[in-house]
């Protein structure tokens, strides 16, 4: 080995090491962006699909007052969806180079690309089913946004600060109805119990991190681990159910796969309804 090659050897390896580190940094940053985009997309799809479902109640609610209440809740959720989907599209664009807007994500994706949990796509059923679903989801969102208040991601913490007040009201609204229907007439009690039994198989999936474990690991301090939200969620929901003289269902099956893009037939019927106008008249606006 010559002196020249000896002297060059450390220099070369140092260069290579530095290049490797740079490469690794970029990849890690990309992975984090992708994980964050994926996490945000899941939250956005939950709110978008439930907003669409609640919107189906318009002109069909038991009273005009309730019609307006459900419309209000749907609009709150749609507002959250707009923030979340815009952000997801923006994050995705940083990695892929082409970002998709909120409308692209809401109206131009197909069923397999949606990342919402099954709970939000199930049909409205009767009013009791809608209220049971809302109690479960709003109580979950309340814990989610409360945890997200301290997220190190400024977009998410700002959204949480606004949305936590909205979902506190949604949760209260659903609570009031579950209490009245559960502790009302024998018929309202039976139908409220039947509604809880019908929606409870969809609870487990909300707190299940099987499909999102990698994403959550990549986002410490940014994402709220749904499994950690469950104890507070359970305390609240179980207190409502007990006070309403109802019993906690013990389902024999559970939904899964929404966060990985596997959905029930329900979403297939919901999407054309939601997307038809935009797809028929691209770029249409008020």
């Amino acid at each position, binding site marked *: 080995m010559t002196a020249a090659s000896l002297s060059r050897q450390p220099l070369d390896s140092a260069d290579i090491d530095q290049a490797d580190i740079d490469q690794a940094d970029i990849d890690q940053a990309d992975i984090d962006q992708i994980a964050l985009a994926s996490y945000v997309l899941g939250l956005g799809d939950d709110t978008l699909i439930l907003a669409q479902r609640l919107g189906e109640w318009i002109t069909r609610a038991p009273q005009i*007052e309730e019609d307006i209440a459900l419309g209000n809740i749907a609009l709150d959720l749609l507002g959250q969806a707009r923030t979340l989907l815009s952000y997801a599209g923006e994050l995705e664009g940083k990695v892929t180079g082409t970002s998709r807007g909120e409308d692209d994500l809401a109206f131009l994706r197909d069923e397999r690309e949606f990342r919402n949990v099954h709970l939000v796509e199930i049909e409205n059923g009767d009013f009791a089913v809608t209220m049971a679903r809302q109690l479960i989801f709003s109580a979950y969102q309340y814990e989610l946004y409360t945890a997200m208040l301290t997220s190190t991601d400024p977009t998410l913490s700002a959204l949480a600060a606004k949305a936590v007040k909205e979902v506190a*009201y949604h949760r209260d609204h659903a609570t009031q109805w579950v209490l*009245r229907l559960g502790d009302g007439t024998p018929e309202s009690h039976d139908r409220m119990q039947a509604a809880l039994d019908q929606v409870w198989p969809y609870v487990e999936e909300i707190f299940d991190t099987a499909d999102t474990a990698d994403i959550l690991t990549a986002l410490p301090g940014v994402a709220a681990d749904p499994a950690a939200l469950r104890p507070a969620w359970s305390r609240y929901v179980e207190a409502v159910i007990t006070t309403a003289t109802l019993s906690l269902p013990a389902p024999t099956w559970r939904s899964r796969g929404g966060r990985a893009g596997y959905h029930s037939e329900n979403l297939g019927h919901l999407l054309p309804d939601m997307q038809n106008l935009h797809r028929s008249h691209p770029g249409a606006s008020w």
Partner: protein
Amino acid sequence: MTTDNNQTPPGGSARSRKGWPLWEVFIRARRGLSHQHVGSLHAPDAEMALRNARDVYTRRGEGVSIWIVPSSAITASSPDEKDPFFDPAMDKAYRHPTFYDVPEGVSHL
């Protein structure tokens, strides 16, 4: 949904609708102002009436406080008594505060 309808007794929905009492809604727009009557609505009880009022009457940031009063609790003057109730005040101009100037800077008077 059809089975649900079968379970509802004839006229059931109309009856339950009638069964929901009427509530009067009062909203205070800002601190310092008094509550103003804004309308009425149906609700099964006072707590739900309060929430319905929030959704129906404060959608555009109209209020900071809501009062709910059962319509049945209100004793109203009758249109028939309009003349004896209100006419005697019409020709007493000296009761109107038109004989002095309102000091500048006094709002909500």
